[in-house]
C-alpha cells in the first residue's frame, strides 16, 4: 500500500477563514458559539456558530477575481462559496493540480444546499441545485477538476468517510492525489430537526461534562490535500496511517449501548496504522455533548484500552459542523501534530461519563506523534482515523 501524505489544509468556521486563524482562536480560548436571534434560522433564539457573512462575501469576491471568473458571486450559494473558499486555500499551499487526471476530488456533506427548499430561494436558484451531485459538479468545475467528484453523505461521519475513501483510493493506486472537502451550513431545516429531537443545548455545549445537556450546531467547511508523492517541505510530514468504518446495527438515532462498534473501528484503524494504544498521544473525539454520544464514546475509548490517553472535543469552539466536522477536526488534529500544541476541551468542567477519561483541561505543549480521530452518527455509523508524524 502506498503512503498517504497530508500536504495542505484549510478550516473555515465562525473563528476564521484559514487554519491559522482558527488555531489562533483556539489558542486564545475564543469560542464562536453565540446566542443567535434570527427568525430565518429558527423562530426563537438558539446557540449557533456562524461564519461571518460579510467577511465571506469579501473573500469570495477576491477568489472570483483570482480565478478570473465572470460569474457573479450571487450565482453561488452560501455552501458553494464555503467549499470554493476552503478548497482554494488548501490548493494555494500545495502543488496539487486539479486538472491532473491522477487527482480526485472527494466531497462530504450531510445536507448540501438544503436551504434552497426555502421559498425565498426558489426564484433565485435552479431546482437542480438542491442535488448533492450538482453541488459537487459546480465546485469541481470552478477549479477545473478533470475527474467527476466522489460525493459522500453519511451523516455525522461523512467527513471521516470522505478522508478514508480518498486515502484508500491513493493506497490502492487508483489516484495519486486527492482534495477532500467537507461542508454544511446552518439552516432552519437542520436546526428545527435537532430541536425536535430536543438535542440542542440551551447553553454552549459541554462535551463529556457532567452538566452537558445536548449539542450546539455550527457551520463551516474544511479541506485537505492528500498525495502519495509529497514535495519537500520544512514542516514535519504527517500521514494518514489508517482508518476504518463500522456500524452499530442497533438503532437509527441512538448510539450503541456498549460502544463496542466504535471500539472496533478504533481497533481496526490502530491495526491498519500498526500502532499500539499506548502510542497514541491524544484523541480528538467526536464529543457532541449529547448525553448518549459522549457516554458511548467513553465506553469505546475504554474498550480500546485508551483511557490514559488525553482526549478533547473541539465542538465547544465551533459547534457540531455535521458534514464538515470530520474535516475541520482532522485538520486541527494534524495541526496539533505539527505544532505540538493540544487544546483544552472547551466546555468541560467535571467528569460526566461512566468511564474515566483523561480530558484535556488546559492547553498544553508536548510532542505529538500520533493522533486518533473518531466520529459517530445517525444510522449507527462510526469512523476512526490515525494520523501520524513521520
Amino acid at each position, binding site marked *: 500500500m502506498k503512503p498517504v501524505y497530508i500536504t495542505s489544509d484549510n478550516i473555515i468556521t465562525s473563528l476564521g477563514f484559514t487554519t491559522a486563524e482558527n488555531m489562533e482562536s483556539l489558542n486564545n480560548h475564543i469560542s464562536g458559539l453565540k446566542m443567535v436571534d434570527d427568525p430565518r434560522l429558527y423562530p426563537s433564539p438558539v446557540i449557533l456558530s456562524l461564519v461571518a457573512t460579510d467577511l465571506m462575501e469579501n473573500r469570495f469576491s477576491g477568489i472570483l477575481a483570482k480565478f478570473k471568473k465572470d460569474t457573479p458571486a450571487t450565482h453561488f450559494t452560501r455552501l458553494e462559496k464555503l467549499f470554493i473558499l476552503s478548497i482554494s486555500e488548501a490548493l494555494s499551499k500545495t502543488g496539487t493540480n486539479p486538472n491532473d487526471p491522477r487527482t480526485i476530488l472527494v466531497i462530504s456533506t450531510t445536507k448540501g444546499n438544503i436551504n434552497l427548499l426555502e421559498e425565498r430561494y426558489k426564484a433565485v436558484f435552479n431546482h437542480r441545485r438542491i442535488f448533492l*451531485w450538482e453541488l459537487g*459538479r459546480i465546485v469541481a468545475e470552478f477549479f477545473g477538476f478533470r475527474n467527476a467528484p*466522489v460525493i459522500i453523505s*453519511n451523516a455525522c461521519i461523512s467527513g471521516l468517510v470522505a478522508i478514508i475513501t480518498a486515502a484508500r483510493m491513493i493506497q490502492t493506486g487508483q489516484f495519486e492525489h486527492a482534495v477532500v472537502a467537507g461542508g454544511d451550513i446552518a439552516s432552519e431545516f437542520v436546526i428545527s430537526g435537532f430541536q425536535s429531537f430536543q438535542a440542542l443545548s440551551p447553553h454552549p455545549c459541554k462535551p463529556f461534562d457532567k452538566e452537558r445537556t445536548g449539542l450546539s450546531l455550527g457551520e463551516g467547511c474544511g479541506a485537505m490535500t492528500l498525495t502519495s508523492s509529497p514535495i519537500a517541505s520544512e514542516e514535519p510530514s504527517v500521514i494518514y496511517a489508517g482508518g476504518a468504518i463500522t*456500524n452499530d446495527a442497533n438503532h437509527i438515532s441512538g448510539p450503541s449501548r456498549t460502544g463496542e462498534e466504535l471500539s472496533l473501528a478504533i481497533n481496526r484503524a490502530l491495526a491498519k496504522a500498526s500502532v499500539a494504544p499506548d502510542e497514541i498521544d491524544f484523541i480528538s473525539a467526536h464529543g457532541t455533548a449529547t448525553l448518549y454520544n459522549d457516554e458511548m464514546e467513553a465506553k469505546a475509548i475504554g474498550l480500546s484500552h485508551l483511557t490514559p490517553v488525553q482526549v478533547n472535543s473541539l465542538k465547544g469552539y465551533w459547534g457540531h459542523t455535521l458534514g464538515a466536522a470530520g474535516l475541520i477536526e482532522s485538520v486541527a488534529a494534524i495541526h496539533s501534530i505539527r505544532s505540538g500544541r493540544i487544546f483544552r476541551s472547551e466546555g468541560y468542567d467535571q467528569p460526566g461519563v461512566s468511564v474515566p477519561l483523561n480530558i484535556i483541561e488546559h492547553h498544553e505543549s508536548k510532542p505529538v506523534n500520533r493522533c486518533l480521530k473518531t466520529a459517530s452518527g*445517525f*444510522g449507527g*455509523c462510526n469512523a476512526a482515523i490515525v494520523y501520524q508524524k513521520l
Partner: protein
Amino acid sequence: MDLIITSYCQIHEKKVVLNDRLIYFMENYLTFADFLKSVYKQEEINYPKFYKMDSVSKLGFLATELVLREKPITGYRSDAMGVVLSNSSASLDTDILHNESIKDRASYFPSPSVFVYTLPNIVIGEICIRNKINGENAFLITEKFDGKVLDNYIRDLFLNSEVEACLCGWVELLGNKYNAFIMLVEKAGIPENGPETVFKPLRFTVENLNQLIERN
C-alpha cells in the same frame, strides 16, 4: 481480486425482479407506499419496524430482504460484512416532508421520526440492524447510477479493509420515481450457491453493473 455478484434484486416500474426472475408486478396502485406494503405482504416478510421506515428505507429494505433470502449471509462474521449504497436524490423525498412541517409558523411541527430519515445513510442503518451487519458502510451520491464509482469503492474495500462480503447498489426515490437495485458481492471461489438457487453468479465488473441495472 475477482469479485462476483451472487444475488441481486431490482424494484422499479411497478415490478420486483429477483435474480432475473419477475416475482411481482402490480399494474395499479394508489400510492408508492401501497405498492411497497403490497410487496411486503406478498413476500410474507415479518418485520414490524418496516412500517416505521420512510419510503426510501422501505424500498432498500425490501430489495435487501429478497437478495438475502436467495443467498443468506449466515456464513460471514457480522463485522466482515459491509453495506455501500448510492443514489441521486439523497433523502430529498423525506426532506420535503420535514420541510412541509416547518413552512408555516402557525403550524410548526417538525417531527423527530421524520427528521431522522433526512439522511441517505439511514437506509444502511436499517439494513444493518435487520441483518446484524457491523462492518464498513458508506453512502455515495451520483447523478445517475454509476457502475464505475461503485466498482471503485467496493474493490478498494475488498482490497483494503476487513470486508469479505458486501451488499451494494442503488436506492433512489423521488416523488413517484423509484429504482432499487441491490446486490450481494462476494469473493470468487467461495462455495457455490445451494441447490435451491438458479442464479449463476455474475462477475462484478463495471460493464456487468451498468448492464444489469438496465436488463429488467
